[in-house]
C-alpha cells in the first residue's frame, strides 16, 4: 500500500486502496481493494465480465464517481481535489455507440471541446481536419457536414475517437468502444487504433470483455472479478497465469477456430 502511494510521481493515474459502494451503503459494494498505477504512455486494459466493475473504475478516474474509500490520483492530485470540469477536459472519453450529439454535424461534434475552450475558428477548423485524417475519415466538407445518423457504426466510432482527442488530452478512457460494431469493422478499428495509440503516446485505459481485443491493445491487462482485481500482467504473461477466472477467459479464445494461440 505505502510503496504504491509513493510512486504516484511516475504514474499518471493511481488507485490507492479504492472502494466504491452505491449511495455509501456498504452492502452495495461495486469495487473494493483496488490499487494499481498507470504509468505515462501505457495502454491498460481492464478486462472482466459484465458487472465486474470495469466501467466503475473508468468513472472513478474522470470524477463522474467519487471513491467511498481510498483515493484516485490523476496527475498526482486526488479526484476529490480537482475541479471536475477541468479534470474531464484533460481526459478523452469514448463509449460504446460513440454517444455523438445527434444535432451536431461531424465537424461540430469533433470541435466540441475546442469550442467550449474558446479556440479561434481557424485553429478549430485546422484541428478538426487533422483529427479526421488521423482516424482515417474524409476531411472534406461533404463528409464533415453530415449528421451522425448519416454515418455507419464504424464511422461514428471514428468520429467519437477524433472528438475525444480534440483538445489533445494526456489521458484517454475507452469503454467498450468497438463492441457494438460488426466483426470485420471491429477488427479494422482495433488494428488502426492499436497503431494510433502507439503513435500518440497517450495514457489509455481501455475497458473490454473481449480477451482478444485486450491482447491486441494492452501493454498491461488487469482482470476484474466481482469488483476485485484478480490478475495484473502483460499480455504475454497473462496467458500463462494460473487463476480460474484467467482460465475462463483464455478458454473463451480457443472456442473460435483459427484463433491465435
Amino acid at each position, binding site marked *: 500500500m505505502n510503496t504504491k502511494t509513493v510512486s504516484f510521481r511516475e504514474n499518471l493515474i493511481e488507485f490507492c486502496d479504492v472502494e466504491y459502494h452505491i449511495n455509501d451503503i456498504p452492502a452495495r459494494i461495486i469495487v473494493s481493494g483496488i490499487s494499481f498505477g498507470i504509468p505515462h504512455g501505457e495502454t491498460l486494459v481492464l478486462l472482466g465480465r459484465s458487472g465486474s466493475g470495469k466501467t466503475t473504475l473508468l468513472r472513478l478516474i474522470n470524477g463522474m464517481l467519487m471513491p467511498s474509500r481510498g483515493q484516485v490520483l490523476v496527475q498526482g492530485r486526488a479526484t476529490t481535489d480537482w475541479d471536475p470540469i477541468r479534470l474531464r477536459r484533460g481526459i478523452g472519453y469514448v463509449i460504446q455507440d460513440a454517444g455523438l450529439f445527434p444535432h451536431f454535424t461531424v465537424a461540430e461534434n469533433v470541435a466540441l471541446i475546442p469550442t467550449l475552450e474558446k479556440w479561434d475558428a481557424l485553429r478549430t477548423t485546422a484541428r478538426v481536419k487533422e483529427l479526421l485524417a488521423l482516424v482515417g475519415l474524409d476531411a472534406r466538407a461533404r463528409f464533415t457536414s453530415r449528421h451522425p445518423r448519416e454515418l455507419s457504426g464504424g464511422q461514428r466510432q471514428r468520429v467519437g475517437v477524433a*472528438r475525444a482527442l480534440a483538445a489533445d488530452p494526456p489521458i484517454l478512457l475507452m469503454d467498450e468502444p468497438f463492441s457494438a460494431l460488426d466483426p470485420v469493422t471491429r477488427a479494422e478499428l482495433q488494428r488502426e487504433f492499436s497503431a494510433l495509440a502507439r503513435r500518440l503516446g497517450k495514457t489509455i485505459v481501455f475497458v473490454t470483455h473481449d480477451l482478444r481485443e485486450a491482447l491486441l491493445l494492452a501493454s498491461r491487462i488487469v482482470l476484474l472479478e466481482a469488483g476485485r482485481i484478480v490478475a495484473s500482467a502483460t499480455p504475454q504473461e497473462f496467458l500463462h497465469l494460473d487463476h480460474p477466472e484467467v482460465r475462463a477467459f483464455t478458454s473463451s479464445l480457443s472456442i473460435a477456430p483459427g484463433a491465435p494461440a
Partner: protein
Amino acid sequence: MNAAVIQLSSDWTFFAEHRAEIFSATLDHLALVLIAMAIAILIGVPLGMFIVQRPALRTIALGIASIFQTIPSLALFGFLIPIPFIGGIGKRTAIVALVLYALLPILRNTYVGLTGIDPAVLEAAEAMGMTRAQILWRVRFPLALAVILAGIRTATIITIGVATIAAAIGAGGLGTFIFRGVALVSDALILAGAIPAALLALIADFLLGLIERRLRVA
C-alpha cells in the same frame, strides 16, 4: 327547390353580407390565442426546464397543471370572474383561463423532451467536461425542441377551440357568433363562428407541424 338548398344559399348570403364582421372577430380570436400562447410558453418552457433540475417540484407542478385541464372550460371561466385583479368580465380573464389550459401540454412536453434524451449522449457530454448549464443549453434543449414544439402545437389547437367559449364572459372572438347562433337557433350564425375557428386550428396545426418536422433530429 328543397329546404336544404335554400338553407345553404341563405347561409352563403349571410357570410357574404357579414364578412367584415366575421373577419374582425377572427382577428380578435387570433389575438386572444396568440397572447395566451405567448404567456403560456413563457411560463411553461422555463418551468419545465426548472423542474428537470428539481425532481421534488416536478410532481407538484405537473399535478397543478393537470388539475386545470380537468376543470370544464366554461366552469373555469366562471370561477375566474370573481377573483380580483385577474378576474372580471372581458379579455383579461379569458387570457388567464386560456393560459391555464395551454400550460399542461407545454410543461409536460418540455419536461418529457428534456428528460427523454439518449443516456449515452448525456454521459458523453458530462464526461467531456460540459457544465450543467452547457449540457442544458447545448444538448438537452436543442434535442428536446421538437418535442416541446409538439406540446406547443397541441396547446395551440386546444386554445383556439377553448377561446370560442371565452365569448361567454365577454372576451369577444368567434365564440360571439356561436353563442348568438345558439340563442337565436340560427345555423348560419353558429357556422360563421365555427368554420373560421376550425380553419384557424387546421392552419395552425399544419404550420406548427411543418416547423416541428424541421426540428426533429435523429
